[in-house]
Every structure is written in structure tokens, then in C-alpha cells.
């Protein structure tokens, strides 16, 4: 089985992030605090509780090299936490938002971070040495609705964002004094490089592939979009799948993506030699019921009422087993974070969901997927 560990750490986990050595995890248990746990022998011990935000913390990211935690919250603020001795000390970052902050991510070089907000803006924050504080620059243009997720390109300049207006946009975040000038790419801060209008519904979970050549994001209409050669003439593919929508994705290699969402089991997508993406399989067993509806008892009840209206009574399995949803997660999975890298490939990752579980997955046991990864 691909699952290596299941930990029930809270009633509901909004988001989580790992420390560089993966010994500690910071998570938000659906309130305004960040709990940091450390795995001591076999038990999880709560090491720190970071209390500064007033409202739900919607995003946490832990930088690997500089060991800073950045949190973004519905209270329109963001804090950068530094470990001083044994205490985490917060530094307020004035984002200048008038709506909630929804997602946050450190840039690859960890000198900037991006925050997506309900104010239809993306804030790019960088550290100003002279004044010893974090400055926020807003990308105000273009978004028609809340920015649901942000992702940095490996070059530390481009940021992709998805929004509830259905579009995925790529901006340049070149800041004089922070980024080195690249003669090949002349770009101004906030310049819209590409706008992808592929989805009629809300979009979530954008991620770049390790090389930065491919982009993947999901739509709320149960479609996952892959865009190759992002630039003036991108190559877009949409993979339609049969079940409930996804919320987040992760590139485990250049050619394989794991998606997680409302179906409670990770889905694996891969590109073949021609570059055509398709759905491979679920990670883990999905208990399929013999006939009739495949879905949980709630669904079959609803379908039973629905179809009972027809003159010819349709047979629906009355004896429905309770859980045909996920085997491991019992509720929506809302984030997937890499745990270990081998070169540019990720073999182990963790997922957290609304059921409060933190699950670690390992692809080493999945032979067929490993073969796909090797290509």
C-alpha cells in the first residue's frame, strides 16, 4: 500500500507544512493558531503553538534553507516567524489587503513570498534590509475574483495564480534590487505574461513541473488542465475524469502528477511519450460496490429518491456498505506537500484533509508507477 502512516492530529486540518529535515510539521487545526508537532519516537508531541492571528489561517509555508515560517490568514495579515532560541517570534507583514489572504508560498530562493487574496490581488513580499521589515507589492491588475492558489516558477521571477474567475494567470514579479536582471527576459513587476482561460468554473491548486516547462491546475468541473511550453503559444490539454473535483496537485516528476480532492483518494495522472496526459489510477483501493450506485450511503439514498420518481421503479442497492469513499481519508483532502526528493522526483509526500488526518504516502511500493516515473 502506498500509505506509510496515518496520524490524527486534529479534528480538521486547514493546511500544513514541513520543516526542512521533515522532523516537524506546522499545521492549522481550523482555527487561528499554528500548531507545531515533532515526531518523538512514535508519538507526536506539540512543541509550539503560534498565536497571533485573529482568524482562520489559510496558508502556511516553511522555508527549507532559511527556516522561516510564513502564515497567511483571513484576518488580512501575514506573519513571518523566525526561530530565536526555542521561541518562534512573529514579524507582521503589512499586506495592505482589505479581504482575506487565502494562500501563501515562499519563492524557490526564499527571498520573496507570494500571497493570494480574496481582494482579487496577489501580494509579493520581499525583505528590505535597510528598514528590517517585509515590504508588500501588490499585483492589482487583471484578477476578476479571489485568488485561490499561487505557485512560483523555479526561476524565482514568474508566479502562476488561479482564481475563482476560472482563469490561470502568470505574472512576472521582477523586483529591482532583489532579483538579478536577466537580459533575455525583460519584464516589469506585475506584467501579465500569459492568461489561460480553459475552465468555465473555479480553479484551484496550480503547480509548476520541476523544470518549469509544464503547468498543471484543476477546475471545479472535475477537469485537470495541463499546459506545456508555457509562453506565447502554450499547448493546453484537459483531462476529464469521472469523479468529484480535485483541490490540489503535486508534480512528482516531470511527467507524473498526483491530484487530491473531494474524493478522498489521491489520483495519479501521467504523460506518455507523446506528451499526452491521462488518468492512470487511484492510489490505494477504492471499494467498489457490486452493482447499482458506487457511492456512499448518503448518495444512494438521494439517488433512490431521485430515481424512485420514474414510473418503472429502478432497482437500487438497498444494502449499501457505509464507506465506499476513501479508505484512508474520510473527508476532502485539501493539500499535498512533498516529503522527500530524489533529484527532481518526489517519492514521498503527505496529505492533510478536513478529517484532521495527516497521511504520509510512499510511491516505492507502487511498482507500475515507479516504472512510469523512471521515463
Amino acid at each position: 500500500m502506498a500509505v506509510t502512516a496515518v496520524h490524527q492530529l486534529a479534528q480538521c486540518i486547514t493546511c500544513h507544512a514541513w520543516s526542512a529535515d521533515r522532523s516537524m510539521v506546522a499545521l492549522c487545526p481550523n482555527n487561528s493558531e499554528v500548531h507545531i508537532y515533532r515526531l518523538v519516537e512514535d508519538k507526536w508531541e506539540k512543541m509550539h503553538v503560534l498565536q497571533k492571528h485573529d482568524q482562520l489561517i489559510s496558508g502556511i509555508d516553511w522555508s527549507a534553507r532559511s527556516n522561516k515560517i510564513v502564515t497567511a490568514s483571513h484576518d488580512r495579515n501575514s506573519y513571518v516567524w523566525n526561530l530565536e532560541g526555542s521561541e518562534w517570534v512573529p514579524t507582521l507583514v503589512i499586506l495592505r489587503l482589505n479581504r482575506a489572504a487565502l494562500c501563501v508560498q515562499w519563492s524557490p530562493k526564499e527571498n520573496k513570498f507570494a500571497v493570494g487574496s480574496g481582494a482579487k490581488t496577489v501580494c509579493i513580499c520581499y525583505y528590505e534590509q535597510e528598514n528590517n521589515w517585509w515590504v508588500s507589492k501588490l499585483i492589482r491588475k487583471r484578477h476578476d475574483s479571489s485568488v485561490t492558489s499561487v505557485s512560483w516558477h523555479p526561476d524565482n521571477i514568474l508566479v502562476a495564480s488561479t482564481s475563482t474567475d476560472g482563469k490561470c494567470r502568470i505574472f512576472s514579479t521582477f523586483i529591482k534590487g532583489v532579483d538579478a536582471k536577466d537580459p533575455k527576459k525583460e519584464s516589469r513587476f506585475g506584467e501579465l505574461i500569459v492568461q489561460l482561460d480553459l475552465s468555465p468554473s473555479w480553479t484551484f491548486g496550480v503547480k509548476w513541473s520541476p523544470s518549469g516547462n509544464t503547468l498543471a491546475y484543476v477546475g471545479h468541473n472535475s477537469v485537470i488542465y495541463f499546459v506545456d511550453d508555457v509562453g506565447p503559444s502554450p499547448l493546453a490539454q484537459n483531462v476529464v475524469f469521472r469523479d468529484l473535483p480535485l483541490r490540489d496537485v503535486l508534480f512528482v516528476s516531470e511527467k507524473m502528477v498526483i491530484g487530491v480532492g473531494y474524493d478522498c483518494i489521491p489520483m495519479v495522472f501521467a504523460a506518455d511519450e507523446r506528451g499526452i496526459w491521462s488518468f492512470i489510477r487511484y492510489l490505494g483501493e477504492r471499494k467498489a460496490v457490486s452493482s447499482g450506485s458506487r457511492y456512499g450511503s448518503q448518495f444512494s439514498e438521494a439517488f433512490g429518491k431521485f430515481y424512485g420518481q420514474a414510473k418503472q421503479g429502478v432497482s437500487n442497492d438497498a444494502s449499501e456498505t457505509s464507506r465506499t469513499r476513501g479508505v484512508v481519508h474520510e473527508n476532502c483532502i485539501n493539500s499535498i506537500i512533498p516529503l522527500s526528493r530524489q533529484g527532481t522526483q518526489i517519492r514521498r509526500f503527505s496529505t492533510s484533509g478536513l478529517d484532521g488526518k495527516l497521511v504520509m504516502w510512499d510511491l516505492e511500493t507502487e511498482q507500475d508507477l515507479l516504472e512510469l516515473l523512471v521515463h
Partner: protein
Amino acid sequence: MARAERFVEADNAEAIITRIEHKSRKIESLLKQYKPVEALKTALEGTYAMTGDERCKSAHWIAVHRALMAIKDVDGMLSSLDPEYYDILMKYLYRGLATGDRPTCDQCLRIHEKLTEKAGLGCILRFLTDTVNTV
């Protein structure tokens, strides 16, 4: 490859109506030959290329409705239908359910159950979220 490419701007409403009438005649002849599955496939083909104003959508719906009501073997029909037509069929099913007419609703419900089994909840979601390509 993107779905958006299939939404081709049609010439004008008159041309679309003519094309739909032509399709209707083909559907009628197929139904006379007791080939309801073929008729439905003809009805669903090229729907995106023919979207236009309300008149076109109505004309198209009438053609699809004719073919839908003639289907007796739902399982057989679904197994021979191309998966790319699942989403568009789902949209027409909901349009049928919206009419409130008893025989239409009965037939649509019957097909809806089997289609959901085959195509999954994602198909229903794609109907719900697609506000651009409505039928």
C-alpha cells in the same frame, strides 16, 4: 487539444437552422429504420459547432428529444456511445428534466441513472459548472 477549440463560431443563425433541419431529416430516416442509437449519435454530433441563439438551441433540442424518446435499450445505447458525448448528453438530459413533461422526464431519469453510473459524478459537475456552452 483544449475543449475551447471545439466551440467554433458558426456563420449565422439561418445557416445553423438549415443544418439542424438537415440533421432532423437524417434522424427521422434513421428512426424509421429502427436505429435509435444511430439517431441519437447523429443528434448529438457537432452540437458545439452549432450553438447560436435561443432559436438554434430550441431546434437542436427538438431533434435530440425526438431521438432520446425513441431509445428503448439504454444500456446498449450507452455502451456504443463515444465517451466524448457523455457531457453533452448529460446537458440534454437536464434540459429534458427541466421540461416537466411526464414521459420526457421518465425517459431522461432512466437514462440519467445509467449515464451517471458510466460517466460518474464528474459528468454532472461539468454540466453544473459550464455556463458558457449551454444547450
